[in-house]
């Protein structure tokens, strides 16, 4: 931890900004029930009330407190995006390592299947699958995780391909270690650094895709508070010159920028260039 703080002290301003913002979001998401003045879908007044000391950001289209919805939205939106990214990484990198170690027809089969999925635009494929499985949080997580697992697969496979030719992997194979052991003990530790940076980037894409789908009304479903659907529900306020409905959208953008800054810093450090 001290080492990390030390590194952070030397990091460029953008990276520090990114870390602070991400920590702030995490705190808000974790302690949402303590921070929020009202209940997640509690109706506290009339529709579209202006900002007051009681309702900091006014009320939404159903008279719920906007500030409370924002705080709970952090928990729902980030939580679901994070869970989806984690699933995508577990599935994608396992399959990628698998293909790299076994090669042959397993590799061919997985890689060609991934080629097909990647050649369909992400949003379009997500919409197709959501039509089949119906719009619910479970199918949303499953569908998006599946689509992004294909991108992770490609990277994990490429990284692992460079590792399986190493002597220590061959030594492990000769020693008679099993496939699972080799993937977990030999490949994973060496493939981790590039995959961690990739995780940050993919999280941003997943986060934006899920927000987009929620904005379209096909992602996280009401009454759960979520930043994408909050924009959609209150968008009519914008035509009256009130920008409150855009606060959730700005919150999405800020987090994406912050994560991008951190990833840039990590990639820069990993590349070994001096600042």
């Amino acid at each position: 931890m001290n080492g990390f703080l030390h590194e952070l002290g030397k990091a460029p301003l953008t990276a520090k900004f990114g870390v602070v913002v991400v920590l702030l979001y995490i705190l808000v998401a974790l302690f949402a029930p303590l921070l929020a003045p009202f209940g997640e879908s509690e109706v506290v007044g009339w529709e579209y009330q202006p900002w007051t000391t009681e309702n900091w950001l006014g009320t939404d289209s159903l008279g719920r407190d906007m500030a409370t919805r924002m705080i709970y939205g952090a928990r729902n939106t980030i939580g679901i995006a994070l869970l989806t990214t984690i699933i995508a990484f577990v599935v994608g990198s396992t399959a990628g390592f698998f293909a790299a170690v076994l090669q042959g027809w397993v590799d061919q089969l997985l890689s060609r299947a991934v080629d097909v999925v990647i050649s369909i635009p992400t949003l379009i494929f997500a919409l197709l699958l959501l039509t089949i499985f119906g719009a619910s949080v479970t199918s949303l997580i499953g569908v998006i995780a599946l689509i992004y697992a294909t991108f992770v697969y490609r990277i994990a496979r490429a990284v692992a391909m460079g590792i399986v030719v190493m002597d220590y992997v061959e030594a492990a194979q000769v020693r008679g270690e099993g496939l699972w052991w080799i993937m977990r003990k030999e490949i994973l530790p060496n493939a981790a650094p590039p995959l961690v940076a990739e995780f940050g980037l993919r999280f941003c894409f997943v986060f934006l895709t899920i927000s987009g789908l929620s904005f379209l009304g096909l992602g996280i479903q009401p009454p759960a508070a979520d930043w994408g659907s909050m924009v959609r529900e209150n968008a009519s306020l914008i035509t009256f010159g009130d920008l409150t409905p855009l606060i959730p959208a700005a919150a999405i953008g800020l987090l994406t920028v912050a994560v991008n800054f951190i990833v840039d810093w990590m990639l820069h450090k990993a590349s070994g260039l001096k600042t």
Partner: protein
Amino acid sequence: MHHLLRLFVQRLALGLLTLFVVSLVIFLSIELLPGDVAQQVLGQSATPENLAAFRRELGLDQPAHTRYLAWFGGFLQGDLGNSLISGLPIWDLISERLYNTFFLAGFAALISVPLAVLLGVVSALYRETLLDKSINVATLTAISVPEFFVGYILVWLFAVEFALFPSIANLSEDASLGDRIYRTFLPALTLTLIVTAHMMRMTRASLINLLALPYIEMAQLKGASQRRLIVIHALPNAIAPIVTVIAINLAYLIVGVVIVEVVFVYPGMGQLLVDSVAKRDFTVVQTACLLFAATYILFNLASDLISIASNPRLLHRK
């Protein structure tokens, strides 16, 4: 020359094969649902007549390959089948919207392509200066915020604060070209901002990559000016990557259109697709997805073919 031709044909065949497999995936994806598809898709409240209509429409009583051949064959002949929910022929639903979507995407492309290349060259020319850094921050922000954020900010700015353009891009069928451009302006501007950011960053990156090559250093040592270096020496060699970037972004444009159309209530394919997903109108979703995916694949294919054709090493191979 025949070597290049073979490469071309190979890539073309691969593209068409992809298109074919994708159409298979889109068509057969409904098989993913376990149990009775009709019941699952239409829900518990569906009447027996609805269920029967659904099965008949999708031909669920026939084996999958027969169904696929009938669907794809119909598709090639311009018979897209009927909507599951309204029963109207799909072609009647999409013909007008298809034109609108291409109009919007074309409009955005017409502004964004020259703008992106210009900005890319300028920021490569003045790299690491304040100008370059501000362009960098602006484009990074444009990429990081959701598309609907950009759209609504423009609505607020141009439709509410300054009241220059309508916030809703509803088109009447017999609108004149001028009226069409006026009403499509804000959605086109939204798309332009998003796509330009991507294209400009890639243009800058590919130019700067080239600047590390020895022949550029040679030109520098000869005393060529920065401007001459970029415009005369680097740009011709960067054309292949830039054209690729443009093709990829045009492909993206077609997809990005979905959210922008919803923001502006624009009567295009994206809006139709989203409505049909919400209604679970499977036949319309399939057709719309196939059209979107086909456009995307064709643009990517075009980018591949152009990059093969513009590579002198492939053109003049021994």
